[in-house]
């Protein structure tokens, strides 16, 4: 095997006595660049501030006698201390900027920095959502231009831009379906969801008042069309299907599924989490989809930010578009882009909206980034994105299927992610152990134990923004830990060994939840804040 590190460092350099090499404990708890950092509550004080603001002046008080006299308990730090605190914390995070982030279904691709710059332009970052529309036409044009390309790329009829994230978009789509059914006086109660679906799908359907039933899968890892057809009937409002699905496979029968659902009077919701695999190659609208959310933070690379904010516009078919929520943008023939809200929906003949999902117009900061992404890639680049994403995943699948069990490896090529299972791991060594060992190799682990249909599932999504050298090094690392798992290497059970923390006790966290800082010994006699305020 070639060295998995391009610098020439070779694995297996023998270190006989790990303890002797480990060095002494340090008095700070730090280990060179691995720096421990206390909580702001332990290093800040309520008197310190890193912002220069005027001392309160005497003047009128119209607070209705509700002045806050009790201590709030918010610690402050000076600016240099603040920068250092958060910089130290940042270094305890793994990130795309540090290396390949093969988290299946999450699409951790490079975040172009141009998009950050664009989002911060004052005309986008420093405008209020309720400004008179004549002062925000450019912002509305961004929303409308992005909406236009999302419709083009998906072959759909309309798009609801306001949903705040993928799951919010799912809810939007399902509510459109419900509104369309209610409009024709058709009370249906069931949404069908494959077992392999993201957890948000059944949660969304239940939240919208539907009963959730499973759609069985066939041995290929795809929806069992015949079983689905047999279940369809007058009680089925719709199906929620992920395509490409969470096993990393394209649902070949998508069009037949849509036709069958439509014939039975239902609607087709497509979870678009994996749209990045097919953008520019095939349009969901051509496969009969009625609604699909698009995770701008996946396909169009707006940053994940350590857990949001996301953005989940929902493209809609002609049948569902009339029910899309307010507000939205519309371009009239004179080229002017309008904001359609409760006050002017009738002028725009949009009187059947199911309502409003959020206070304002959606994730503007994500729209600017996504639009810059689409324009940067262009028609040729977006196709290349899908092709390279799929190529990279297949390269991983075929480079590792001799050492890791690939349950659907026989089903043909995968799409943008490669799925493996834990078959063949020795003894009690689990997927979790392998994942934690991958951390020691300098990688974020893949998605684990999802989809639920594969035992000990490992879902690997490299994305298109990895070089071949980066893929080869990752393959080398994963091969090595897989071999150790099969050989029963017990050191996997205690991995990671080199991360800022060893395995964390999640049971303890849940059994005795500590969810907020509490002062160990509340000092009496601290000056009350109103005294400090000196009003």
């Amino acid at each position, binding site marked *: 095997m070639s060295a998995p590190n391009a610098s020439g460092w070779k694995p297996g350099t023998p270190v006989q006595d790990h303890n002797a090499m480990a060095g002494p404990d340090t008095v700070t708890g730090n280990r060179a660049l691995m720096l421990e950092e206390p909580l702001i509550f332990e290093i800040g*004080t309520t008197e310190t501030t890193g912002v220069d603001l005027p001392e309160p002046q005497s003047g009128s008080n119209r607070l209705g006698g509700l002045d806050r006299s009790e201590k709030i308990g918010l610690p402050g730090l000076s600016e240099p201390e603040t920068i250092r605190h*958060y910089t130290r914390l940042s270094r305890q995070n793994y990130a795309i900027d540090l290396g390949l982030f093969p988290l299946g279904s999450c699409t951790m691709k490079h975040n172009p920095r141009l998009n950050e710059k664009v989002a911060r332009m004052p005309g986008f970052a420093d405008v209020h959502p309720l400004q008179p529309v004549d002062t925000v036409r450019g912002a509305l044009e961004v929303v409308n231009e992005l909406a236009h390309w999302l419709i083009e790329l998906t072959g759909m009829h309309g798009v609801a831009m306001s949903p705040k994230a993928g799951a919010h978009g799912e809810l939007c789509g399902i509510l459109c379906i419900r509104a369309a059914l209610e409009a024709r006086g058709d009370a249906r109660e069931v949404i069908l969801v494959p077992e392999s679906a993201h957890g948000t799908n059944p949660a969304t359907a239940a939240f919208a008042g539907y009963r959730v039933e499973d759609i069985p899968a066939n041995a290929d890892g795809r929806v069992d069309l015949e079983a689905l057809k047999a279940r369809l009937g007058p009680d089925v409002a719709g199906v929620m299907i992920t395509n490409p699905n969470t096993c990393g496979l394209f649902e070949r029968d998508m069009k037949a599924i849509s036709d069958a659902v439509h014939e039975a009077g239902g609607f087709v919701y497509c979870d678009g989490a994996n749209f990045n695999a097919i953008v520019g190659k095939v349009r969901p609208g051509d496969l009969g989809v009625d609604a699909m959310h698009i995770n701008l933070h996946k396909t169009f690379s707006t940053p994940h930010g350590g857990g949001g904010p996301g953005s989940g516009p929902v493209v809609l078919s002609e049948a569902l578009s009339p029910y899309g929520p307010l507000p939205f943008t519309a371009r009239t023939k004179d080229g002017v882009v309008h904001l359609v809200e409760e006050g002017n929906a009738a002028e725009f003949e949009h009187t059947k909206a199911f309502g409003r999902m959020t206070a304002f117009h959606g994730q503007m900061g994500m729209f600017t980034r996504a639009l810059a992404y689409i324009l940067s890639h262009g028609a040729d680049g977006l196709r290349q994105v899908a092709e390279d994403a799929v190529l990279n995943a297949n390269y991983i699948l075929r480079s590792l299927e001799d050492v890791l069990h690939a349950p659907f490896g026989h089903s043909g090529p995968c799409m943008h992610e490669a799925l493996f299972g834990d078959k063949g791991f020795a003894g009690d060594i689990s997927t979790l152990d392998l994942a934690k060992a991958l951390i020691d190799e300098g990688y974020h682990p893949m998605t684990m134990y999802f989809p639920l249909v594969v035992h000990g599932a490992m879902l690997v999504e490299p994305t298109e923004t*990895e070089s071949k050298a980066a893929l080869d090094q990752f393959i080398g690392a994963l091969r090595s830990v897989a071999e150790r798992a099969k050989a029963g290497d017990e050191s996997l059970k205690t991995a990671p060994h080199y991360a800022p923390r060893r395995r964390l006790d999640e049971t303890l966290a849940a059994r005795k939840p500590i969810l907020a800082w509490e002062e160990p010994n509340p000092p009496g006699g601290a000056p009350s804040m109103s005294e400090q305020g000196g009003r």
Partner: protein
Amino acid sequence: MRYLPLTDADRSEMLEKIGASDVDALFVDVPEEARLDGPIHGLPMHASEMAVEKHMRRLSKKNLAAADAAFFLGAGAYKHHVPASVDHIIQRGEFLTAYTPYQPEIAQGTLQMLFEFQSQVAHLYGCAVANASMYDGSTACWEAVAMAGRIARGKKRKVVLSGALHPHYAEVVKTMAKFTDDEIAHARPAMQAAPDNDGLIARIDEDTASVVVQYPDILGRVTDLAPIAEAAHAKGALLIVVNTEPVALGALKSPGEMGADIVVGEGQSIGVGLQFGGPYLGLFAVRDPKHVRMMPGRLCGETQDAEGKRGYVLTLSTREQHIRREKATSNICTNSGLCALAFSVHMTLLGEAGLRRLAMENHRLACIAADRLAKVPGVSVLNDSFFNEFTIRLGTDARAVVRKLAKQDVLAGVSLGRLFPDHADLADGLIVAVTETTTEEDIETLASALEEVLA
């Protein structure tokens, strides 16, 4: 294409390894009749960084930025000064390009930050526990209503909304309630100096699961929440308090102190910026820790690692959709992580002393503005009490006045006609917000412009 590292030579080598003749062979499962054979219709080919930047800048320039106007908009989004360090920190790649901290050993940065954030929000709200954030204030508000419904175990169906709740928040609640069969009792806002608490209390009955009140309310008024909490609790209902301006809580008693059970709000004011409405930051907290397991959204908790070192993890996830699927407390699958970081950094820079000064500076300038505008002929100030936002009546359609003044780069406020298009009798109302970024010169500009247009 600058974002795609593979070379043609790489691609050929990889296809060979895979055993595929060309890349289309990998898309064999896509039905041929549905495959696009050429580039996407109408979309230009890839563009340079310079070209895209130019296009976006052109669109940006078509907008009037808040900093370039005399600016008085609020009503759920406020213009505050955000220290430069905040944007620097949230652009660190280790925060910006990290994922949800599901692998805690290599995500302690995000996790510790979230623990600190939760603690800051809990303190600010006077609550025991806050979650790791929601999409925004309006969705947090609906989630609170849904949570109160879960606590009532479906035995109580009614939700009493204050007429002075932000109308867009009320719309979100009503939209979602259509699908959950909750009964929404909503009133219209009363144009009075003080909110109609007696009317609100009279609408609470045995079937009420929750009462939703905004503080300060949409018209900027502040009111003692304790009597409302008492009345709600007497009927076995929970009091949900919505706050859209967290800076206010540097000057005003916290909702938790006055008996609110669930406190939710918009955190945008601290660290996040205006951004044309999003992304924003939903804050969500409960006063009583016994309600924690009913909460929606992510929670970060303290624990220990295998060596006994303190560390943090996402916890109590058995409430969440990825574990419970259709039985989850919410379908939410994210938080507003980077906005929470911005909030937390800004709040750390402020500290309690800074927050209190910031709040008093906002209030001082708002008082000056209210006094000055009251002197404009035809203008009257509605509020007895306010923090940094109050309502004036113009005696004429405020929406038209706002549009007129915008042409002179004066963004005068949010008209009630924009917010309540169905209530013609509110049309002369204008909500005026004043923050530390407002100068006395701006106030004078607004007052003279109003004098001119109302003359």
